[in-house]
Each structure stands twice: as structure tokens, then as C-alpha cells.
């Protein structure tokens, strides 16, 4: 029997009696966070909008962006900064199983049993957007293993500018770019840049070395993102990723108001 065989299914199954509620648009869903079944249960009612069950599963935050932009380093920084405040875990989607997971372990960010790696069959964007089954399995495994989880990061395998997370998998998402990719990237747009709940422009310490104009990147991001926030970050200069951690705390306060920091 595989280890996850007896897991309680805590995804959208609970929504069956109210299947129409699942057809809400992203806007509605983002205003009204989705709730899974209560931990340890499998057939609870769908509780959207009732105010109950809000803490019954952790807040899931997707971290996406191109290869090498610093997603894993950001996740490691957030785990270090937020790990003392919240009960958290990470799902990685690396090309090969263990590279990112090993990085997190090596950096002693999290114990092994709080990191799950999934294979994406050469299709990292499929695994976070079109067919999220493997990621849901990993998320549910972590949720059942650690019933007190407050926060769960799902790190995408590096992909292109169009790769976004399905809101069936995460509650909010961060898209990570870096200045070395060129200061024209925000202008190019694409769903990652335009629609992510938070855009992080990483490695600002390299801007002068690669001829990237941070002002241009900030201006172009604002132009395509409306009122969605953008944070300029250098993990070299701020290994705690303080501004991003603050954004995560805000998301928790907004979407899981009864979760309080330890």
C-alpha cells in the first residue's frame, strides 16, 4: 500500500453538493477564498463564504517564474523568515526530482518531512495549471502529515512568461523575474507578469552589471499590472526577503484571519 493511500481527500471533493459554487470566476474566488474539507474529514460541506472552516487548510502560495530567477532562493528565504512564525511546508516541481528539494534541505530551511517533490513529466506549466493532480496529491500529503500547517508554498519548475498557477491549486501566486533576464521583460508582459498577485523583480544588486534600468522595469510593471504590487528585491542585500515576507503575512491576515503568528 503506498504511503498516501489512506489520505483524506481534502481538495474540492467536498464541493460536490454545490458544484455550481466551483464555477465562480477567479475574481469571485479570490475575494472568497476556497476551503477544503476539514482536516481529518472527507465529506464536509463546502463552506465558502460562511466564514467557517477558514483555517481548515493552510494558505497555499504559488511561486512561479523563469528558470534561474531565484524562486528556490526566495522560498528558502521565506521559510527562514516565516518559519519561526508559522507552521509551513513546501512542494517543489523541479525538472528532476530532488535539486530544489535538496537545496532547501542543505540550507537547513525545513526538515525533510516538510518538503515534497513532484515530477512534472517535462511539462512544468501543465502540472501547476492544466492538470494539477500531482501537486494536489503532494499538497494533501503534507496537509495530512502536518495537520497544523498555516502556510504552504508550491514552487513551480522554471518556465516561461505565460506560466501561471491554477487557483484550484493555490490561493495566491508570486511571479519571480530577475534583472539579468533583461529590463524589457516586464514590458513583454504575459500572464505571469500581468496577473500574478505579486511580481518580484529579483537580483537588483546585479542591475548595474547587466545594464538593466530598474526604473524602466518598475514603470513597465506598473503599466501592465494595474494596482497589483511589484517588489524589487536583492536576496544578496536582504537575505530575509523582508518585503515579500510582509506581503505573505498580509495575505495570511486577509485570507486566513484567524491564523496568528506563533
Amino acid at each position, binding site marked *: *500500500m*503506498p504511503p*498516501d493511500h489512506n489520505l483524506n481527500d481534502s481538495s474540492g471533493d467536498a464541493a460536490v453538493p454545490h458544484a455550481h459554487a466551483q464555477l465562480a470566476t477567479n475574481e469571485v474566488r479570490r475575494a472568497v477564498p476556497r476551503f477544503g474539507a476539514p482536516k481529518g474529514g472527507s465529506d464536509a460541506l463546502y463552506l465558502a463564504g460562511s466564514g467557517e472552516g477558514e483555517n481548515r487548510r493552510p494558505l497555499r502560495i504559488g511561486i512561479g517564474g523563469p528558470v534561474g530567477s531565484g524562486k528556490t532562493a526566495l522560498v528558502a528565504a521565506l521559510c527562514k523568515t516565516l518559519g519561526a512564525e508559522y507552521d509551513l511546508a513546501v512542494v517543489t516541481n523541479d525538472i528532476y526530482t530532488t535539486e530544489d528539494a535538496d537545496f532547501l534541505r542543505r540550507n537547513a530551511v525545513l526538515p525533510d518531512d516538510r518538503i515534497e517533490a513532484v*515530477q512534472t*513529466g517535462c511539462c512544468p506549466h501543465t502540472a501547476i495549471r492544466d492538470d494539477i493532480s500531482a501537486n494536489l*496529491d503532494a499538497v494533501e500529503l503534507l496537509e495530512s502529515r502536518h495537520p497544523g500547517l498555516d502556510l504552504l508554498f508550491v514552487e513551480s519548475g522554471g518556465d516561461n512568461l505565460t506560466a501561471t498557477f491554477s487557483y484550484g491549486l493555490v490561493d495566491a501566486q508570486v511571479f519571480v523575474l530577475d534583472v539579468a533576464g533583461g529590463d524589457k521583460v516586464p514590458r513583454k508582459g504575459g500572464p505571469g507578469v500581468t496577473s500574478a498577485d505579486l511580481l518580484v523583480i529579483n537580483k537588483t544588486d546585479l542591475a548595474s552589471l547587466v545594464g538593466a534600468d530598474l526604473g524602466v522595469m518598475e514603470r513597465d510593471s506598473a503599466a501592465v499590472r494595474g494596482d497589483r504590487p511589484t517588489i524589487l528585491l536583492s536576496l544578496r542585500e536582504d537575505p530575509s526577503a523582508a518585503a515579500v515576507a510582509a506581503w505573505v503575512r498580509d495575505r495570511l491576515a486577509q485570507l486566513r484571519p484567524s491564523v496568528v503568528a506563533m
Partner: protein
Amino acid sequence: MGGHAHSGGVEQAICVGVVTDAATLADFLERRLQTAGPIAAALAAAACHAVAGNTVGNSEPGYDPADGAAAMADRLGDLDTEAEARTPSPALRTASRSLGRGLTRLGKRAWPHPAWADLSAAPHHPIAIGVAAAASGVKPIGAAHVAAYLTISGPATAAQRLLSLDPLTVAMITAQLSARVDAVAARAAADPSGPLSAVSDPWFDLLAETHASRGDRLFAS
């Protein structure tokens, strides 16, 4: 659901040099259809039959719905055990249950039906296919078709990605197997309450176990 991350053994077959091009892929798919196919198709047809024959649709004289529900639950439980017995490789058991879990998650939402409550959260994939078929009004032969086809479509697209094959060539290879898929499904669904196929192919078990121990795999199985 979740199938895109599973290669049906073809990733390992490519790694060890058995599948190298379109011709060797065609051989691989044929073998998989003839060994994994009958098992998956028979289990799916039997599960579909167990559900379709034991629920409200049954209008036979003297049929008691309560007995029917109990018989359905028993039969689905037995079939899951039969699937376990026909899947000796732990890696393949995990893969099958992972795919079954994904389909169950979808099926409960897309085709609500009392039979889903008789399954665990992660039943074997063919059992979930059978229940999904019955819950959506498809007959056992349809369930058998789906199960048989899925035993080749997954590895076909995985090989297409891993070997950078021409997608038209891969589609052609798959299409050329359609008559054989039909034959496998027809045999499997001929007597969905009768004895189940017990074909085995240790090579696929070996591929799966070796694959599971790799640190550089792209696919879950």
C-alpha cells in the same frame, strides 16, 4: 487526471536504450497494449458493470436496491484487491493509485454518484475508470476502451517529449493500434462479471522498479 506526469515505463525503456525511435516505440506500445491493456480493460469493464448493474437503473423484477448497493460496494472492494494482486510492482501500485486518486477527485465533481463513496480516496486507476464510466452513463465496453487506450496514449506522448519525435508520427502509431485497442476492449468486456484477465509482464514491473530508484527521472512512473 495526472497522466501527463506518468510515462508508462517508456522513460526507463528509453534510458536503457530499448526505445530509441518511432519503430521501437511502436513495438513498446504494442507490448504494453497486449499485457497491461487486458488487465486494465477487464478491471475497468468489471467495475463499470458492478456499478451500472447495481443501481437505480436496474429494473429487473425482484431487484432490491439495498442488496444492490451492498453488492456494488463488495464487488468494487474485491476488484481493487484484484487490481492489487495483478500489480506486483510497488512503484506501479503507487502510480495506479495516484492516477486513480486524480480521476476520483474529478469524477466526484463531474459525475456525482453513490458508487464514489465505495472507493477509497486512491483506488486503482482502472477501478476509478469503471466507476467514472458508469457514473457518466458509459457501458462496460466503453470503460474497457478508455482503459486500454490509456495504457498506450500515456507512454506515446511521453516518448514524443523525451525523444523529440514528430507528433504526427506518434499520432499515426497510436492510430494504427486502434483496431487492436478495440480487440483488447472487446475481449475484456465480453463477460464483465466473469473471471478477470491475469496476464503479467515482469518486464514492465522491472522497468518501473528501476525507474523509481533513479534520481534523474522526469516522470513519476
